[in-house]
């Protein structure tokens, strides 16, 4: 096929291939785009490491206190009244032994706005392991019981933990049963010494007391 003449007013086509200068410019442009992509990925990678994870952003609002101090949350005020332990507990006349130690935490709780329960209770040891209230007994305070606003109730939460961790426990209390994110949680360190642990294990069994309304 014969080449056609250029349209009137335009210079004749002399060369279709890009010049070396054009090729260099093309390579530079592509390298620039590639560099931008790599830079965007790098920024994303750094952001992913620096920005808090959803678990960190949505973690519970922890309110801490000591034994005897009221710890106020959004829907509940909790006070750890006392803590004791035993190698054997008695529940409704039945003795329950353990391979570790029973920890009985006496807690005073009051709903502030509407009926709520101590839906989440756990003790956390120094290694970060968490222990729910024992399912081997009918727990006096947790387990679906509701608190009415303005009527404080005092009762024991009974945990079973390995002896070696008993003096490193923190109790967690919340009104949220499964998902404690984005809500208040009370945390109180339990002042248990290794000597107390030995003493409790050597002592006789203790009876779990029933929950009661208090002033």
């Amino acid at each position, binding site marked *: 096929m014969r080449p056609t003449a250029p349209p009137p007013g335009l210079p004749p086509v002399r060369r279709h291939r890009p010049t070396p200068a054009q090729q260099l410019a093309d390579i530079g442009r592509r390298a620039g785009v590639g560099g931008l992509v790599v830079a965007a990925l790098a920024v994303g990678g750094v952001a992913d490491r620096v920005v808090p994870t959803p678990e960190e952003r949505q973690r519970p609002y922890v309110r801490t206190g000591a034994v005897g101090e009221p710890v106020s949350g959004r829907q509940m005020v909790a006070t750890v009244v006392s803590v004791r332990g035993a190698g054997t507990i008695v529940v409704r006349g039945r003795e329950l032994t353990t391979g*570790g130690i029973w920890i009985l935490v006496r807690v005073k709780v009051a709903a502030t706005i509407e009926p709520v329960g101590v839906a989440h209770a756990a003790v956390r040891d120094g290694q970060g*392991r968490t222990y729910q209230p024992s399912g081997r007994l009918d727990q006096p305070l947790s387990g679906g019981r509701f608190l009415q606003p303005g009527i404080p109730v005092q009762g024991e939460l009974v945990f079973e933990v390995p002896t070696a961790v008993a003096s490193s426990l923190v109790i967690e209390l919340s009104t949220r049963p499964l998902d404690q994110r984005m809500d208040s949680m009370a945390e109180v360190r339990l002042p248990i010494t290794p000597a107390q642990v030995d003493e409790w294990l050597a002592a006789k069994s203790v009876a779990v007391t029933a929950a009661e309304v208090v002033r």
Partner: protein
Amino acid sequence: MTNWLQALPLRWHITGAGVFVLAVSGLFGGLDPVAAARSDVPRISLGDTVEAGPWRVKVTGITLISEAPPIRVTNKGDHLLAVLATVEVTADSTRSDLYDIVRLRGVGGLRTDEPKFVWMRRDGAYAQHLQPGLPEDIAFFWEQAPTATNAAALEVEVFGKTYRENTLTYSNRRANKDWLDRRVHATLLVPVKDNRGVQP
């Protein structure tokens, strides 16, 4: 540069694209080995300890009993097969999925696949939870039809789980990780003790 790329045969383009896809897939774990096939599940002996994810399990025996009050069988005349094991939670929180731990394989006349009851031998009562770091002797009960006959030894599967990120839902665990992907970690042959009439 464009010219020499265009000059390459189509086959080379396809091969190059395939290599690129494999490389990217490899970066995200696509070339990792697949889970062990069933034939690769370790065969262990009675009394061996299995590290099976959230728990450590040592199967100690199987006992056949008539009925163990307060456990009552649903169908009159059924007997109970109990797999006895020592279980210690090695996960970092209380476990309540005790019905997932063991299964009987190839045993006739069982009324359910999973245990009907999980029993804490220390209390002689149903076990709801196991606490981390506290080994307990557990009995896993199955109801079995009275017409079923058992071999001298039965096959027990010990299951475990993998601790990994939960990609579907919030799991309320650290870094959204949870124990998932239940699978057999070991199998063993366990002799059956016929203790009908005696509480395990």
